[in-house]
């Protein structure tokens, strides 16, 4: 995942102001998206992520900063150049935003129509896209007749029609149930792999980031507070926002436990075995599990567990040593 730079954002700021209020939505944001990667921007609602992604294709205009798409300054583009650039950047939305008076096929056909693609060629392309998103039988249905997941598939197919090299996803799975979210994420991953489309997504769900993103930026109060490979950010998260999003800290500050704790990260490397039981057997220390959030994928364990930190320093050292020996990452979390 070290392709050429596709999108470069530099010192981006956006302020929403009226007579009484002044909201800094984006505060000096800088980040780089490379060709071929899935880049996730995560943050709580109100963190400014939607504004950020909308600035990339200039649905929103920042007050300050620079956005480069393949080295071209997006903010300096004239109308013609902007339309051409937008046709190379697909976008999908939380509310799908499909044309309700057009059939599925005609929704997908729209970008081809406005680009003046000949009818026969467009029909062919629509067929291909329907099969990419798995909606072969729904060509003549109207969006109102589809489920949420199917609607998002239409949105994806429509955004891919002009063969974009970037797909912007604005909370694309936030209106969907967990099962459907899984299938849409799998589709995005498949598109990224098969078509090589770079994906830039924003979400408030860390699970989405962990499941398909290569790199992540954590946004908090309009600033990037952490950025890097998903694995390393997940393992070593330092920011308050990161900890909350990863579930190390409870989402609500008032629910913080006052217990000093250890955070154990399962990144799929550790063998599948009852780690905590073994820990007690091997070290003679009985630990108290405060919370755990784990998934089992293909015989590997991903996720994290928060345990109470043993009060005796020697026991604490023994516990940490044992866990690290098992290939796990352990961090002391100084909760309060």
């Amino acid at each position, binding site marked *: 995942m070290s392709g050429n730079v596709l999108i470069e954002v530099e010192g981006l700021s956006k302020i929403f102001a009226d007579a009484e209020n002044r909201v800094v939505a984006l505060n000096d944001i800088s980040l780089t998206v490379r060709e071929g990667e899935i880049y996730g921007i995560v943050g709580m609602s109100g963190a400014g992520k939607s504004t950020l992604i909308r600035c990339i*294709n200039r*649905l929103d205009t920042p007050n300050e900063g620079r956005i480069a798409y393949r080295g071209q300054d997006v903010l300096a583009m004239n109308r013609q150049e902007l*339309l*051409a*650039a*937008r*046709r190379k*950047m*697909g*976008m999908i*939305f939380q*509310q799908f*935003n*499909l*044309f*309700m*008076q*057009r059939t599925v096929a005609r929704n997908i056909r*729209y*970008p081809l*129509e*406005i*680009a003046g693609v000949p009818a026969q060629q467009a029909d062919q392309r629509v067929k291909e896209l329907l099969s990419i998103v798995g909606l072969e039988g729904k060509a003549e249905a*109207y*969006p*109102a*007749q589809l489920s949420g997941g199917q609607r998002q598939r239409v*949105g994806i197919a*429509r*955004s891919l029609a*002009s063969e974009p090299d970037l797909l*912007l996803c604005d909370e694309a799975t936030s209106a969907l149930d967990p099962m459907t979210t899984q299938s849409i994420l799998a589709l995005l991953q498949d598109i990224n792999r098969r078509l090589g489309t770079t994906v830039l997504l924003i979400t408030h769900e860390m699970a989405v980031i962990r499941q398909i993103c290569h790199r992540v930026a954590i946004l908090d109060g309009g600033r990037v507070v952490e950025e890097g490979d998903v694995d390393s950010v997940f393992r070593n998260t330092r920011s308050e926002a990161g900890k909350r999003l990863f579930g190390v800290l409870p989402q609500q500050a008032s629910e913080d436990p006052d217990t000093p704790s250890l955070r154990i990260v399962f990144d799929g490397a550790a063998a599948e075995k009852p780690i905590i039981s073994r820990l007690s057997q091997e070290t003679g220390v009985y630990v108290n599990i405060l919370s755990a959030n784990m998934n089992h994928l293909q015989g590997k364990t991903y996720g994290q567990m928060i345990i109470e930190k043993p009060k005796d320093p020697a026991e604490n050292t023994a516990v940490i040593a044992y866990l690290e020996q098992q290939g796990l990452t352990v961090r002391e979390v100084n909760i309060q």
Partner: protein
Amino acid sequence: MSWEQLWPLILEGVWDTLYMTVPSTILSYLIGMPLGLMLVITANDGIRPKSALNSVMGVVINFLRSIPFIILLAMLFPVTRLVMGRAIGTKAIIFPLVISAFPYVARMVEGSIREVDRGVIEAAQSLGSTDFQLIAKVMIPEALPSLLNGAAIVTVTILGYTAMASAAGGGGLGAIAITKGLNLRKMDVMYAAAIALVILVQIITIAGNKITKKIDHRKR
């Protein structure tokens, strides 16, 4: 009055009424539709904000809409004579009808276009649509059921205005009800004309609803 005498009178009235209503509605839309679109597009939250132009259009439309039709009809006599060749009569009245109705059409169209989900327009923008494509391929088609529903309402309203044509020497069911009914104390003529008007309005309304339902795909 006998049925044999009444029937041709009413038929003629229906013809005259439609002769005034249909062209007036079409011409009102030719002016009002672009104006309504402009109102949406040039608004502050529109795709091409033009604050001053938008305000001027708003003021002119509100001005025209606030003058009652019967007064506008009288005020426009000289202009009507200039445009239509004469100031009174069934044909001449089409001009004041259009002047009175196009601001109303503009507001109806504005309302319908505004109903189109902002997110849908943004999606079309994100796909690289030009402003013309946004209007012609997204805003109007997406608003079409609402536009048609509005057109039925506009037609009925103009049909109602034609009843005042008698004040300017025009014909139609309204004129028959007043000049050949009420003024001559022939109540059967007045009621027959009124019933014919009711039937016309029902036909337009029901047809409008049916077509709107048929072309609207927002519901299953």
